């Protein structure tokens, strides 16, 4: 297998240029798909037979919820790559992911509680799904706090990477909490094959999933550039990029 791509991504100037080129494409596609998903989810999809229109919160809540787990997993993988191959760009990517992940987790908790109130009668319950998702937010905070507390960037990279990797056990706990324990939270909706919803409800949701992933890619690439500039301030490629 040819590993040159892996080494290329490990180079800060290459990654900076890559991020610069791809951000508008990811961002533009995310915006278009979000508008399409909004129209499909709010206008075209029919109301649910039980939840009426309240179920439409799914079009924001489910994509941000799955993204909050995906970002954490991506952050842990990047941190592990950084630790194993001593790759600075990977550590930078992990560091750049954390604040986005924390915000998306906040969005998950808020949109979820706005769905919980009309359906369960409470904004918050100490349910396994909700509690483990709240813990995810604390993991993001812990990761960022640890980085901020250690002045030496290399030591901060290593220590925070270990925390990110250990914390990844929480991801399957969140995902399967609705199956493992008695939860007030509804289980995952089947979207394909023997689906729980009609197609006119499903496609806007799939569109939103994709839109939010592309949004993450775009914002991550912007933050990654900031992180690379901060780390490599003295390097000659920075001079070239900024001139």
């Amino acid at each position, binding site marked *: 297998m040819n590993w040159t791509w892996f080494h290329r991504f490990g180079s800060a100037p290459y990654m900076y240029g890559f991020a610069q080129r791809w951000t508008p494409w990811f*961002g533009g596609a995310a915006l278009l798909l*979000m508008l399409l998903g*909004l129209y499909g989810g*709010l*206008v075209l999809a029919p*109301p649910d037979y039980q939840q*009426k*229109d*309240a179920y*439409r*919160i799914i079009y*924001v*809540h489910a994509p*941000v919820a799955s993204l909050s787990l995906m970002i954490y997993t991506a952050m842990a993988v990047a941190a592990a790559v950084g630790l194993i191959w001593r790759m600075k760009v990977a550590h930078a990517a992990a560091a750049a992911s954390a*604040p*986005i992940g924390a*915000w*998306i987790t*906040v*969005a998950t908790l*808020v*949109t979820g509680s*706005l*769905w919980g*109130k*009309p359906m369960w009668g409470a904004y918050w319950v100490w349910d396994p799904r909700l509690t483990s998702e709240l813990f995810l937010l604390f993991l993001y905070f812990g990761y960022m706090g640890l980085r901020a507390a250690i002045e030496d960037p290399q030591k901060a990279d290593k220590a925070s990477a270990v925390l990110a990797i250990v914390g990844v056990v929480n991801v399957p706990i969140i995902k399967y909490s609705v199956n493992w324990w008695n939860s007030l939270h509804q289980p995952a909706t089947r979207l394909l094959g023997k689906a729980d919803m009609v197609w006119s409800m499903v496609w806007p949701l799939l569109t939103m999933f994709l839109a939010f992933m592309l*949004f993450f890619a*775009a*914002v991550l690439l*912007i*933050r990654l*550039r*900031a*992180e690379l*500039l*901060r780390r490599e*301030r*003295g390097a000659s490629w*920075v*001079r070239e990029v*900024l001139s």
Partner: protein
Amino acid sequence: MSEFFAMSGYGTYIWWSYGIGFGIVVLNVVLARRALADAKLQARRRLEMSK
């Protein structure tokens, strides 16, 4: 039209969740761009100092 916004009585919950959800999306774009502008400024200052 008002029926659309009422969302069979769940309008308040729906519009708040969409507002906050997409508000956080926009905020993340703004914060990321600000972080990049800030990093560029710092890097430029440092380059000028080293001249």
